């Protein structure tokens, strides 16, 4: 989908460059010859055939559902088993014909039917008590199918089932993340790298966010914002480190991970400011900042600075500074470690600086997601400062005015110090 749009832009650019005399017809032919053939995407006949297939599948499902109670257990199981075989058979047939989208769709349907099979066996043997175990089985089967068939849809099924499995298991672990999911997630990440697939990389990055949020919410800790900040730091730092790797596929995946990390960091910055007023009492002995979470946050900052050292990019180093500032703000001003004396002016300033660093890092590195995330973070932090219900609004308006004046002064100084781009 994205490849097709890119090719259209490229063709338009090539035509313009040729017309302007920037490239010769020979160069044009050379560039075109280096491009791999486009895979047959989804055209109108394919869309119509997908709709037709879905209608037939829905009719079959409705027919089976109407007679489900009358069917013997073995017949029900046989129907679902046949569904898996038929779906994968169609997938193989489409793959042989080069219809990769349809093959992917059929493999996904096969994995969904596999999930239905697990539910049926659970019903047959009264296994309602171990829902998480069923989800793990579903995730494992779908992940195996994804690995074998290169199906992005099966990977999406596997990650969804895996996140649900882990969410249910996280509750059982005191003060610790559910580490088996990390191994599962790394395997999925390995597949995304092997496939060189942007879609798969997005799915893998996306799966890490609900997992980390659930981990933070389920832990017996006071500082939920702190744990969330650590997760965002690791995602952004890990993405930057991967983007600095010498392999193109790692760089592509890293760019996607860092985009998710930047947006997560921006949201956490606003959250830290919004929750810095929550003077919550926690029972004695409750860990506010778990060591493993702190280690993840610090690792994220180290990875970002390591990537900056490797690539010698100031923008990446500034992203590391943004991570560090958000972590400091979260570490000091999340309950129950926060000071209860007065307004947390310093955390407001720190989080604003962090988001400014994120915007600047995006500009310097030419990373648009970081720029957008930074602006969203600035807006979020200002909104949190302004709309938090406690404290004096007048003082906050004074703070924002001072912060704005400092920013304008800084802009004036930078304008004098930095070389200008205009001719």
């Amino acid at each position, binding site marked *: 989908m994205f490849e097709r749009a890119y090719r259209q832009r490229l063709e338009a650019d090539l035509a313009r460059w040729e017309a302007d005399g920037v490239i010769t017809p020979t160069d044009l032919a050379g560039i075109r010859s280096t491009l791999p053939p486009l895979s047959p995407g989804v055209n109108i006949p394919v869309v119509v055939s997908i709709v037709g297939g879905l209608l037939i599948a829905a009719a079959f499902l409705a027919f089976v559902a109407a007679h489900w*109670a009358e069917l013997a*257990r*073995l017949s029900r*199981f046989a129907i*679902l*088993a046949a569904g*898996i*075989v038929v*779906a*994968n*058979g169609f*997938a*193989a*047939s489409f*793959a*042989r014909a080069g219809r990769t989208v349809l*093959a992917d769709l059929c*493999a996904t349907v*096969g*994995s969904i039917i*596999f999930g239905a*099979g*697990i539910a049926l*066996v659970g*019903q*047959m*043997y*009264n*296994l*309602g*008590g*171990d829902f998480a175990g069923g989800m793990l*089985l579903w995730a*494992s*089967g779908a992940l*195996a*199918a994804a690995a*074998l*068939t290169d199906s992005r849809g*099966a990977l999406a099924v596997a990650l969804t089932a895996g996140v649900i499995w882990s969410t249910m298991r996280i*509750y*059982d*672990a*005191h003060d610790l993340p559910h580490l088996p999911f990390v191994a599962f997630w790394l395997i999925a990440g390995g597949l995304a790298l*092997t496939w060189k697939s942007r879609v798969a990389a997005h799915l893998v990055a996306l799966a890490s966010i609900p997992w980390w949020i659930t981990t933070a919410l389920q832990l*017996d800790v006071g500082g939920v914002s702190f744990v969330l900040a650590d997760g965002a730091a690791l995602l952004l730092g890990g993405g930057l480190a991967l983007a600095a790797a010498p*392999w193109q596929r790692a760089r592509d995946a890293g760019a996607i991970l860092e985009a998710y990390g930047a947006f997560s960091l921006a949201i956490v910055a606003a959250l830290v400011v919004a929750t810095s007023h929550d003077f919550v009492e926690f*029972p*004695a*002995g*409750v860990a506010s900042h778990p060591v493993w979470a702190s280690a993840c946050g610090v690792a994220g900052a180290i990875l970002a600075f390591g990537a900056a050292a490797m690539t010698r990019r100031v923008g990446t180093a500034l992203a590391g500074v943004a991570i560090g500032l958000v972590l400091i703000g979260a570490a000091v001003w999340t309950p129950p470690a926060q000071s209860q004396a007065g307004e947390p002016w310093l955390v407001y300033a720190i989080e604003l600086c962090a988001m400014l660093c994120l915007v600047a890092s995006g500009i310097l590195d030419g990373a648009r997601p970081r720029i957008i995330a930074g602006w969203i973070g600035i807006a979020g932090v200002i909104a949190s400062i302004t709309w938090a219900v406690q404290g004096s609004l007048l003082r906050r308006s004074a703070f924002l005015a001072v912060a704005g004046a400092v920013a304008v002064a800084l802009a004036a100084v930078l304008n004098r110090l930095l070389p200008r781009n205009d001719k």
Partner: protein
Amino acid sequence: MTETSAAALAERWRRIPKAVPFGAAALIQLTLLALMVGDRIQILRDGTEVTLQTQLLDPRDFLRGDYVTLDYDISQLPAGPLKDRPAGARDPIVFVKLAPNRDGIYQAISVHTEAVAVKSPEVLIRGRVASGANCGPKGDLFCDKLLIRYDLEGYFVPEGEGKKLEQLRNERKLMVVAAVAPTGRAAIKRLLVDGKPVYDEPWF
């Protein structure tokens, strides 16, 4: 070097007929389902049979469509020596030693955090503490009473049968025969009403 070997591997993968990976994917998924079925059949076939008395439950929780929730005399137990000991998890796994009374109905003898040796006719059943592992200042110690789940609490019944079972259960006429594997894992094998079998779990 790495890129070259990866490219060579990808080329080999491309040469494999398309039916092979898709067939393998279907085979893995069917094998996982078969293993799930086989596991339950093994418990039902080889497990020691224990008869358990069901208990009154809040009727609002009892019936969810064709799904019946059961509670047992062995569901709520005193923690005994486990009280105030670290639970290790929010829902820790425990092992309950059961022994039959004069009527042949199994009763709980003791609760353990590890599997312990039992002598026939005693049986060790594995359960998970649903409530009662959150006492102490940090909420990580066993309380004095434990609510334990054995994965025997759900039973799918034919449509319309739930209300009848609810009535029988309220009159304490409903009992469950569970098959317990040597590992302690259990499965519902039979439902008894007044001591007579009414539902027998088929293997398939």
